[in-house]
C-alpha cells in the first residue's frame, strides 16, 4: 500500500452493493440548455467504465456533477451504495472521487508539489506538507511508473506530464474512483498506451475508473462497460464485450451512420497555393510551426491530420493572416506578405483566401452581433456592403444574409438574431456560408463539423466537395481521422510543427496515420 497522505474521515466501505457509483435521475440545465436529463447509471466497483457521446451530449457535465464542480438540479448520487450528497468538490474528494478534467485544473506557475498538495495540506504550515508530499509522490510515481520532477513548474511540463500531475493529485487524495475526461485527446498514441497501462494497474488495485472518450477503439480496448449519451440523455449502458464500434456509433447518433462522402476522383489543375519552409513562433517565442512546405492544386482537397496542438492551428493562422510567419506563401504565383501591416486577414481575403476557423465561437463569430452583422465579419470593407464612402449599407447586408441563410438552411432564418442564440451547428453554418459564398480561390477550413449534427455534417461535406469540383483549392484541417480520410484527395500528417509524412487516402489506414501522428516516420 501507498503511504496515505490524507486520512480524512472516509466511511468504511460497506460492500453491500457491487456498485462504486450509482447516479439516479440526474438533471442539469445551463439556462435554456438542458445538458443532462434524468440520467441513471451504475458503475461496478473495480471496473473501467467508458462514456461516449457526441460533442455537447453532456458527458463532461455529468462527470462534473459527480465531482461536485456543478450542482445538479435534481437527482441523487450513491457511492458504494450509500446516498452521498455532493454539493462541492470537497465532498467528492472526501467520498474518494478524483477527476482529471478535459482542461487541466493546474496552477501554471506553481511547482508539481505545490499543485499536488493544494487543498490537501496537512496543517496551516507548508513545510511539513511539502516534505510529506515529496515522499508520497516519490512512492506513487515509482509504483505507477509516473516520473515527474516534483520541483518542476507546471508551465514547463509537456501536456502528457501535466496529465500525470493531475492523476497524481487524485491519487494523493486517495481517490478510489478516478474520472478521466477525454484524457487521450492531447496525447500521442504512445503516451496514450502508457496511460492505459497505468489505468489497468489502478483497476487491478480495485479502483474504479470512468473514462470519457470519443475514440471507439479505446473504448473497445480498455473498458469493461460503456454508456452512451445523446443530447443530454443516457441512451444505453452495455457490456463492452457485447458491443461493436458500429452499434455504439449508432447509439451515439441515433440512427445508422454513413460517414462515406460521395465524391468523384479529383482532377487537380494548376498549383494554387505553395507553402515553403513556413515557420511560426507563439507569443512566448516558442516555435510552433517548424518549417512546413506543401502545395495545393486547383480542384484538390489537402487534408491535414494530427493530434490537436501539433501546429495545425498555427498553420491555418499563418495562412489566414492572423499569425506572423517566416518562409514563403505563394497564391497563384503571387507572394503573400508574411509580416508587417500588410499581413492580415483583410489582405488575405482580398487575395482570394477564405477561412473557416477551427473555433467558430472564439474566432469566426462575434457572439453578441446579429447574424447579418456576422455575415459582414471580415468582409466589412467589401464594396457590395457599402452605401457610400462613409456609411455601410445595412439593408443590403441584411438581404444578403437572408439569402445565405436560406441557401444553407440556417435555422431559425432570422437575420437579426444574435449569433449566440443559434445552436452550435447553425453557428457553424453561418460561418461556412459566409466564407464559401465568397467564391474564394483557396478555402482554409478547420474542424468543419466539430459539434455539428449528422445532417449538417453531410451538408457541409457536400459543399466542400462541390467547391473542390468547381476548381477551388481546399486545405482541410481536422482531428477526426474519418473526416480526413473520406474528404481528402491527399493527406499530410502533422507532428510537432512539422509534416511527418503524406499519405494517399485510397491506400492508407488508421494505423499508418496513427504512427505518423505519433511522430514515428511511416516508411522507416
Amino acid at each position, binding site marked *: 500500500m501507498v503511504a496515505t497522505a490524507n486520512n480524512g474521515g472516509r466511511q468504511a466501505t460497506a460492500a453491500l452493493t457491487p456498485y462504486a457509483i450509482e447516479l439516479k435521475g440526474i438533471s442539469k440545465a445551463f439556462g435554456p440548455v438542458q445538458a443532462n436529463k434524468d440520467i441513471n447509471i451504475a458503475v461496478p466497483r473495480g471496473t473501467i467504465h467508458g462514456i461516449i457521446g457526441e460533442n455537447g451530449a453532456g458527458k463532461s457535465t455529468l462527470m462534473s456533477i459527480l465531482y461536485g*464542480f456543478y450542482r445538479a438540479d435534481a437527482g441523487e448520487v450513491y457511492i458504494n451504495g450509500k446516498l452521498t450528497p455532493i454539493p462541492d*468538490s470537497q465532498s467528492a474528494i472526501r467520498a474518494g472521487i478524483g477527476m482529471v478534467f478535459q482542461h487541466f485544473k493546474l496552477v501554471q*506557475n506553481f511547482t508539481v508539489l505545490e499543485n499536488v498538495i*493544494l*487543498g*490537501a495540506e496537512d496543517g*496551516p504550515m507548508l513545510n511539513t*506538507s511539502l516534505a510529506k508530499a515529496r515522499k508520497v509522490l516519490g512512492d506513487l510515481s515509482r509504483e505507477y511508473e509516473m516520473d515527474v520532477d516534483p520541483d518542476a513548474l507546471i508551465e514547463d511540463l509537456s501536456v502528457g506530464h501535466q496529465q500525470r500531475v493531475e492523476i497524481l493529485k487524485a491519487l494523493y487524495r486517495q481517490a478510489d474512483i478516478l474520472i478521466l475526461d477525454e484524457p487521450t485527446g492531447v496525447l500521442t498514441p504512445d503516451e496514450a498506451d502508457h496511460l492505459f497501462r497505468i489505468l489497468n494497474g489502478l483497476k487491478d488495485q480495485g479502483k474504479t475508473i470512468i473514462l470519457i472518450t470519443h475514440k471507439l477503439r479505446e473504448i473497445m480496448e480498455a473498458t469493461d462497460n460503456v454508456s452512451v449519451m445523446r443530447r443530454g440523455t443516457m441512451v444505453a449502458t452495455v457490456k463492452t464485450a457485447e458491443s461493436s464500434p458500429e452499434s455504439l456509433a449508432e447509439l451515439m447518433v441515433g440512427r445508422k451512420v454513413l460517414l462515406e462522402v460521395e465524391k468523384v476522383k479529383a482532377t487537380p489543375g494548376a498549383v494554387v497555393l505553395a507553402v515553403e519552409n513556413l515557420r511560426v513562433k507563439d507569443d512566448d517565442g516558442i516555435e510552433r510551426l517548424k518549417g512546413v512546405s506543401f502545395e495545393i492544386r486547383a480542384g484538390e482537397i489537402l487534408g491535414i491530420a494530427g493530434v490537436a496542438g501539433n501546429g495545425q492551428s498555427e498553420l491555418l493562422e499563418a495562412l489566414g493572416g492572423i499569425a506572423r510567419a517566416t518562409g514563403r506563401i505563394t497564391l497563384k504565383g503571387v507572394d503573400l506578405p508574411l509580416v508587417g501591416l500588410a499581413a492580415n486577414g483583410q489582405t488575405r481575403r482580398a487575395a482570394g483566401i477564405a477561412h473557416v476557423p477551427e473555433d467558430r465561437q472564439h474566432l469566426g463569430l462575434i457572439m453578441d452581433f446579429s447574424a447579418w452583422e456576422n455575415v459582414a465579419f471580415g468582409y466589412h470593407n467589401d464594396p457590395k456592403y457599402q452605401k457610400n464612402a462613409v456609411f455601410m449599407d445595412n439593408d443590403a447586408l441584411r438581404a444578403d444574409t437572408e439569402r445565405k441563410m436560406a441557401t444553407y438552411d440556417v435555422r431559425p432564418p432570422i437575420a437579426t438574431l444574435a449569433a449566440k442564440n443559434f445552436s452550435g451547428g447553425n453557428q457553424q453554418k453561418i460561418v461556412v456560408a459566409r466564407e464559401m459564398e465568397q467564391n474564394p480561390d483557396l478555402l482554409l477550413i478547420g474542424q468543419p463539423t466539430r459539434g455539428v449534427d449528422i445532417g449538417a455534417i453531410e451538408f457541409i461535406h457536400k459543399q466542400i466537395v462541390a467547391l473542390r469540383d468547381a476548381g477551388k483549392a481546399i486545405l482541410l484541417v481536422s482531428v477526426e481521422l474519418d473526416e480526413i480520410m473520406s474528404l481528402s484527395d491527399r493527406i499530410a500528417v502533422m507532428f510537432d510543427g512539422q509534416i511527418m509524412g503524406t499519405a494517399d487516402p485510397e491506400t492508407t489506414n488508421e494505423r499508418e496515420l496513427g504512427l505518423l501522428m505519433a511522430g514515428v516516420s511511416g516508411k522507416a
Partner: protein
Amino acid sequence: MDYETLMQIFGSTVRLGTPLLLACLAGLFSERAGIFDIGLEGKMLAAAMAAGSVAAMSGSAWIGLLAGIGASLIFSGLHGLASITFRGNQLISGVALNFLSSGITVLVAQALFGQGGRTPPLDGAARFNPITLPFAESLQDVPLIGPLYYQVISGHSILVYAAVAFVPLTWWVLYRTRFGLRLRAVGENPAAVDTAGVSVVGLRYAALAITGVLCGIAGAYMATALQAGFGREMTAGRGYIALAALIFAKWRPWQALGATMLFGFFQALALRPDVVESIARFKVPVSMLDALPYILTVLVLAGFVGKAIPPRAGGEPYVKER
C-alpha cells in the same frame, strides 16, 4: 545636500511611505487572490474618517483604529459582494466605492462635528504619537549612525513600525502557509482551487478582509498619526499611488516595501523643493515632483523597467456556468 538633510528627508520618507506601504500590502492580498482593487483609496479614506471621528469622540487612538478597520471592512465587504458574489466588474466596483467614500466621509463627519466635513484636531491619547526609541536623543550626535537612528529609525508612531513588520509577515503568510498557497492559487487559477475542494468564494472574501484590515490601518494612520484628525479627501490619491507601487513591486511584499518607500521619497522630496533645487541647480517645478511616481509607474507598466505580470486570474469573476 548634507547628510543631516538627507536623513531628515529619509525620516519623512518613512512617515509618508507608511500609508502607501499599508495600502500596497492591502492591494497585494486582494490582487494576489484575483480581485483587482482600485478601491484602496476609498477604503483608506473611509477608515481615516472613522478613525478620526471615533478617536475624537472616545479620546482613544486605539478605539479609533478599530473603527477605521471596521469602516474599511464594510467597504471591502461591498466590493466582495459586487465582484465575488454578484460577479460584477471589479474595476467599476472599485471606482464606485471610491466615489461613495469620498462623498460619504464628508457627510458623516459633517453630521457628527459640523466642522465642514472635518474632525476636530486630535491630541494626546487620541493620536498615535511618535515613539522615541531608546538612546535616540543621546546618540543623536554620534556621526553617521546618530542622525540615521534619530531621524529615520526612531521617532515614528507605532503604526509605522507595525507597517514595516507587516512586510515579512506578508511574505511569510504568502509563501510559507497553507492559506498563502491557496491565496496565490486562487489568483492564478481559481478552477484549480475549486476542484481541489477549497472554496474560491471563501478565499477571496478572506483576502478582501485582510485588504480591509490593512487599508483600515492605513487610513487610521493618516488621521491619527500622520495628521491630527480627518479632513476631506485627506488620502489625496495615496490609494492610487499604492496601486502603482504594487505594480512596480510586481505583486511581491519586499519589493512593495521598496516601491512604496521610493514613492514616499518622491513625496518627501516634493515637500522640499529647496533641496531639489540646490541639487538640480535650477528651479524644478513642484508639480513635476508630484507627478514623478505616476510617470514612473507608467514607465513600469510600459515594460521599460521590467515586465509586470499580474496574477493571471485577476480582474475576472470566477464563473463556472456561463
